[in-house]
């Protein structure tokens, strides 16, 4: 039961032993250019069928929509004006006020810092007037994974890399995992989803089973990195050992705050959060819900003991009520 994941990490707690490092992604959205190469590489490598009917969604450059059974990487595009940028900077600053490490004073934008400039980050800042947020979303590979906990067949398992993988030859498509994911990632590959208006000859693999990002399990076992991070041209998607990635993510967010980008914040780097931290960590430039991410996800199985207690109480009540009805019905 992955709820028992301890400090040694989820893979160790799942019986793999402690000698394997947990791996994952760090997606730094501040350097994403929205090229969608990750989406394409993922689709090609995993041979995922076409999603939807190729409709223009009217949501900036995002015509993919959301993560799903056939889309394991999804690049979100958000266009924002001055008001919203300032609100994001303010909400990021408030996070610092919550007992987080403090950062230096914010230099005014456009002003050249004094002294030696050789160590200064030369990244041009976003304009004050407009910015484009781009973020490549993916399965979070949670430490306490709801989908894995509730899978009744054992089709979903914790790999030796700490990732969460579905065995599509075991899954019987009950759909419980779909409801248990607090991020809305995993989905059943149904006829309704994949019957595109564009007729294609290829068969749909693994129809009727639950599908999601495997962290390219087939590539990891032969020592390769996942297709999306391998293809990312800006290193916005980085693959590596989870602890190192979290450390570099924390360095990066501090650096951005020092540059005055107080809107920067990490998502999923906290092992005390509702899912025990995620294997895929993100650096976001606004509130999570702006990117379609839940602001306070909780793994549903966290409260399962209380739910089972309620099941027991309700069942006992039903038995008692029936017994009383027979006693009362004697007359």
């Amino acid at each position: 039961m992955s709820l028992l994941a301890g400090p040694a990490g989820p893979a160790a707690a799942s019986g793999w032993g402690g000698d394997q490092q947990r791996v994952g992604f760090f997606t730094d959205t501040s350097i994403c250019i929205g090229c969608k190469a990750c989406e394409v590489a993922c689709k090609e490598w995993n041979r995922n069928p076409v999603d939807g009917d190729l409709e223009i969604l009217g949501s900036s450059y995002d015509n993919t929509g959301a993560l799903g059974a056939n889309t394991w990487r999804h690049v979100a595009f958000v266009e924002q004006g001055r008001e919203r940028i300032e609100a994001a900077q303010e909400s990021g600053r408030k996070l610092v006020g919550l007992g987080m490490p403090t950062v230096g004073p914010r230099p005014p934008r456009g002003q050249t810092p004094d002294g030696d400039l050789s160590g200064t980050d030369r990244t041009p800042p976003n304009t004050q007037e407009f910015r484009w947020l781009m973020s490549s979303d993916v399965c979070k590979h949670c430490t306490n994974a709801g989908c894995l906990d509730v899978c009744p067949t054992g089709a979903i398992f914790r790999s030796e890399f700490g990732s969460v993988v579905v065995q599509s030859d075991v899954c019987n498509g009950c759909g419980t995992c779909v409801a248990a994911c607090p991020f809305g990632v995993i989905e059943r590959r149904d006829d309704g989803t994949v019957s595109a208006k564009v007729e294609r000859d290829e068969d749909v693999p693994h129809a009727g089973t639950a599908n999601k990002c495997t962290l390219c399990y087939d590539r990891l076992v032969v020592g390769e990195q996942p297709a999306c991070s391998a293809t990312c041209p800006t290193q916005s998607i980085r693959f590596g050992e989870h602890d190192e990635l979290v450390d570099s993510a924390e360095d990066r967010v501090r650096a951005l705050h020092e540059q005055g980008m107080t809107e920067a914040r990490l998502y999923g780097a906290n092992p005390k959060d509702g899912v025990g931290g995620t294997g895929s960590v993100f650096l976001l430039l606004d509130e999570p819900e702006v990117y379609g991410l839940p602001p306070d996800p909780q793994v549903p199985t966290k409260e399962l003991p209380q739910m089972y207690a309620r099941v027991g109480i309700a069942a006992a009540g039903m038995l008692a009520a029936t017994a009383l009805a027979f006693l009362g019905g004697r007359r």
Partner: protein
Amino acid sequence: MSITPLDADRPPEGPRRRRRPGAGRTGRRRRSIDRLGSTDGGREQAVVEDITIDPYDSYYGRPVVKAPPWRAPIAVYLFLGGLAGGSGILATGARLTGRPVLRRTARLTALGALGVGTVALIEDLGRPERFLNMMRTLKISSPMSVGTWILGSFGAVSGVVGAIEVDRMTGERIPLGPLRPLVHGAETPAALAQAALGPLLASYTGALLGDTAVPTWAAGRKHLSALFVSSATLATGGAAMLTAPVSETRPARLLAVAGVAGDVASLHAMKASMHPLEAEPLETGRPGTMLRWAERLAVAGAVGTVLGGRHRAVAAVSGAALLAASALTRFGVLEAGLESVKDPRRVIEPQKARLAARRDAGITDDSITTVG
């Protein structure tokens, strides 16, 4: 926001629309390609301007969590599983108190409801031919797995007592051969097991729906099991009133009235405990209508039971009303959950509220969003 000298050649822009905070949902967000502006490059600016319709408190109004691919067969199963579980207890009670007709009809109801319910459950799988994969493991962390084993065990004992009943009805015509004494000898243990497993079968579905990220179900975690056993209880009473003579159904009538009281009380308690956005799907739209009718039918059935339960026709009509009420409750709760994921605010707003509440209480170390 003039950027290039060419801006002067563009047609005037309409006023930018912004959503007021607290205003209702914005309308249609998917637009067809012809509404995205003409294909000549000079007017592409309109695409960007139009986007400001979208509020920034969600990603283009798209769902944050996904609804499970559960359709009507699952609601049918929730209803019939509850009915089967309740009838199992009722049959055992009838046997212990010497009510042979009630015992027979309750046992056959349990077996029939279980059979149809199981078929519905399997039918809704993505790969029905792999339904036995449910039995390759037992996972306590999965209410679906635990429930499958409850369903399987209840099915086995219900099959034994059901076969005994059919054997009696047909004058021992079932070809049991030398096994007959063995099967009939197992009647008491099987009946007791049926009474022990029945309530769990009716109750575990509360954890099945509660153990999800679907906002309305997750918010109802504490009350779903109580609601479902109440609904199963009134359905059980109703089925007995419909199928057994009034001389034997007094306990069933009492049970039906108790079930209605529990059903109405637990649904209201559940709604009262929720964030308004999470309760809304239970009160509005199609699921809201179904739940309102479920309550009306349940109350009408209870009144009919109390006033005319000793009259065969009135008892039968009341019983049918109670069965319909129970089915509507399950359809209503299932559909309310499926509906609740469609609006991302139902996920985001309650989550922001609970995060803020924890921060106000001084807990600042458990947010998924951190700095450094």
